[in-house]
């Protein structure tokens, strides 16, 4: 999934470091923001692409300025491939990859990774699962050894499965403390309906409970295949060195026939629905939105520009200008399109004190009507384009970002020359396009509205 948004890279130590504006980093950084990438003549992508005999696509970007190697593997299987009654299967599988292999126990894996100061992370998403390795060059063999071991020989021990099951259920329970989690959960459910994108990636206690070890083993053997994966490697490694590592650690990865199944697209029909969740809070946590677009929708770039102007452009956006800067109603207000492979959603989010909820929702709708009803100004269009095209260099300014980026452009079939094409895609967008996509993708009547708040104090009119 991609999000069209600005990200503000900030960290918070012990809750004592405050930023002027912090979009929820954990939410945004999960995703590759391919949309915000663009090329310049100075800094073009320089990645090699190979398809191995087992079908694995290998992408390699060499850079020897720092003795580190970043690896990103995308396995094209995620939430979308799960049966409804076993929601959370892809996530549970990814969590268990590091919990035991044929020759290593859970603690052995973490001990070996921690000892070399590396990280080996796994994560399931709507469309795919990723396994990432960040390691010093000097430890690359150990890193690849562990990486290939968890990928090719996971055992999914029953005891670890039970432990992880309880942990995930515990985290889900704890997350119910977060108003934003409650709002997001309700919003996804309404917008995507029965489609897998509408579920929590972690699943639900009742679905997590019924997942059996066999389900996990089967999911792994069906999807964790070289002919269903993309491997990207960036950093201090020559092609020759990469070949040697591939031969030593991944040669035994054998292809199988993939079961092609229709993944199904979510219903794009917009239906009005208001969900109120009552909780003893000082703020109303508000999400308003509707079904959006898939990543391959030709309107993607027009939507990127429109959303930047509307609510994705941080302090350059209309929502921020009006709701925060002028009215002082919220610290954070934003909008984004979550564009998955098979569909997507659009949402506007903010938090404001309970008593201001009606005013804030009214202002959101007024702003939405504004962008639907009138052309944007020349200045807005040109500023949005110059941000979206000009920020490319920053999007590829670390080895980790490069590894993730080239993997995701392969997944979305954007081509390794995407960086050269991207400015043209953005610059081709016209004011008419913006008006058209705003009308098409922003609902001002048939929207889903979720408000988690002290409902008595909020006294919603909606």
């Amino acid at each position, binding site marked *: 999934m991609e999000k069209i948004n600005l990200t*503000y890279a900030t960290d918070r*130590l012990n*809750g004592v470091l*405050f930023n002027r504006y912090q979009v929820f980093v954990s939410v945004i950084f999960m995703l590759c923001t391919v949309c915000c990438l663009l090329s310049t003549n100075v800094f073009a992508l320089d990645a090699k692409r190979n398809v191995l005999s087992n079908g694995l696509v290998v992408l390699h970007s060499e850079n020897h300025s720092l003795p580190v190697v970043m690896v990103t593997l995308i396995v094209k299987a995620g939430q979308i491939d799960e049966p409804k009654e076993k929601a959370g299967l892809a996530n549970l599988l990814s969590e268990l990859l590091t919990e035991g292999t044929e020759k290593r126990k859970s603690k052995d894996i973490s001990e070996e990774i*921690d000892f070399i*100061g590396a990280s080996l992370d796994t994560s399931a998403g709507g469309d795919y699962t990723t396994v990432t390795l960040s390691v010093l060059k000097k430890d690359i063999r150990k890193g690849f050894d562990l990486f290939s071991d968890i990928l090719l020989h996971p055992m999914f021990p029953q005891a670890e499965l039970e432990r992880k099951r309880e942990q995930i259920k515990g985290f889900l329970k704890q997350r119910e403390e977060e*108003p934003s989690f409650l709002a997001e959960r309700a919003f996804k459910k309404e917008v995507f309906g029965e489609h897998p994108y509408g579920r929590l990636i972690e699943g639900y206690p009742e679905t997590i409970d019924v997942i059996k070890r066999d389900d996990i083993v089967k999911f792994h053997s069906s999807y964790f295949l070289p002919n269903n994966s993309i491997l990207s490697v960036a950093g201090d490694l020559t092609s020759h060195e990469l070949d040697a590592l591939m031969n030593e650690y991944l040669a035994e990865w054998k292809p199988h026939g993939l079961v092609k199944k229709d993944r199904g697209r979510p219903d794009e029909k917009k239906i009005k629905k208001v969900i109120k969740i009552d*909780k003893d809070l000082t703020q109303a946590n508000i999400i308003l939105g509707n079904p959006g677009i898939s990543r391959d929708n030709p309107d993607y770039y027009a939507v990127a520009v429109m959303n930047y102007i509307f609510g994705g452009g941080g302090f350059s956006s209309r929502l921020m200008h009006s709701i925060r800067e002028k009215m002082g*109603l919220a610290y954070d207000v934003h909008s984004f399109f979550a564009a998955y492979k098979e569909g997507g959603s659009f949402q506007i989010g903010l938090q404001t004190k309970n008593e201001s909820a009606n005013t804030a929702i009214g202002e959101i709708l007024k702003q939405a009507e504004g962008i639907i009803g009138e052309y944007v100004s020349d200045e807005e269009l040109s500023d949005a384009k110059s941000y979206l095209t000009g920020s490319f260099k920053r999007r590829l300014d670390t080895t980790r970002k490069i590894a993730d980026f080239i993997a995701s452009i392969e997944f979305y079939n954007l081509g390794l020359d995407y960086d050269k094409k991207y400015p043209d895609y953005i610059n081709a967008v016209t004011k008419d396009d913006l008006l058209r996509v705003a009308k098409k993708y922003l609902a001002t009547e048939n929207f889903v509205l979720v408000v988690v708040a002290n409902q008595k104090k909020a006294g919603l009119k909606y």
Partner: protein
Amino acid sequence: MKYVRIIIAFLFILIPITVYGSDIKEYKLKNGMKVIIVEEHKAPVATFQIWYRVGLREEPAGKSGMSHLLEHMMFKGTSRYGPSVLTKIVQKNGGTDNAHTTKDHTAYFEIVPSDRIMLPVELEADRMNNLILDSKDVLSERSVVMEERRLRYEDDPQNSLFEEVVAAAFKVHPYQRPVIGWMSEIKSIEREDLYSYYKTYYSPGNAVIIIVGDVNADEMMKKVREHFEALPSEPVDKQMPSVEPEQKGERRVTLKREAELPFIILAYHTPNFPHEDNYALDVLTLILSGGKSTRLYQSLVYEKKIAISASADYSSFNIDPYLFYFFASAAPGKDIKDVEEALFAEVEKIKKEQPSEREVQKAKNQIEASFIMEQDSIYMQAMKYGMFEMLGDWRLIDKYLEGIRKVTAEDVMNVARKYLKEENRTAGILIPTKKVDSIQ
């Protein structure tokens, strides 16, 4: 997960110079302002940062949150650029900007394509001297900060407990207060308070510029001198904050509110860098929670299954002594008292017996690796130089690394014995009350 946060904390404190010697250039302007430039030509981007030596620590009583509110106001415009256009200018040049406030400092940064790096020089020099601070804007931004406080604290049970614990651990030192400020005090901050604070602390002699990226140092300095050297610099008359008296008995706070799982925080007073004990305390932190293989996760989460997360956290990079923390969330259905006892058991264990050589080496390897990895980002590099500058001098980084390398297993046990004592502890427990109701 908490252990991840520890690694992130280390990303801030470890620096490249000794191993992959970046070429660090240091300059001093006539008005006393220090400038540090690191040329890093890996990617065509650069960051400009300006760090002011003012934070929570300098705030007068009754006005907590002033440094942070002023930080917000710094984006509201100057006599030259008008209200709220600074960020827009940066963004339309393909850049991003932001700022942060801590107990000891306030820092602003821009990250831009390197051919636009002269832009932030002008913007930062301008707002150091020409901030508007319009009264109406102050009122509006105060509301924004109050919303920020609601978001981060009022409606977040764990952060609320954190605030309670810190307030109980300190009796007189300003670190007692939250950086964002208490609600009633944020509300009491007026335009005039901010103006005099700005005039006092936002001066060249009280700030450091850090530039890292694809730049030419000579060209940069020409531009920096042109914009900053003529700015007047009054000496800042800093008052020493009160010294926190030694704690002589456990303090305990409880917080009862709507929440799902009980949560515990333990906080012990500890010294700050460059106290000789801080190196061993850093290694101790990683031995306790530097990844899933380490003690707290293995014991509380993996073996005993009584917690869903457990971690230790310590940052010595403060101007005055601060705290060493333990955090843990009880697993559903588990008693927080058992979680507390399990944490105490880990504390007693490390006080009785030295950690293994492998554990010490693992912690040191993690530090070494993280400081190489952090060089991947120009932003993180600049953050690190800034952090050490706030403590006196970026060259202290070398001292820090030397200190870490010398730590022995015995040192780790000794600092645990010295600081992780009951009488030096503040314990906080979150007790969840009622459940969530939903209406559709």
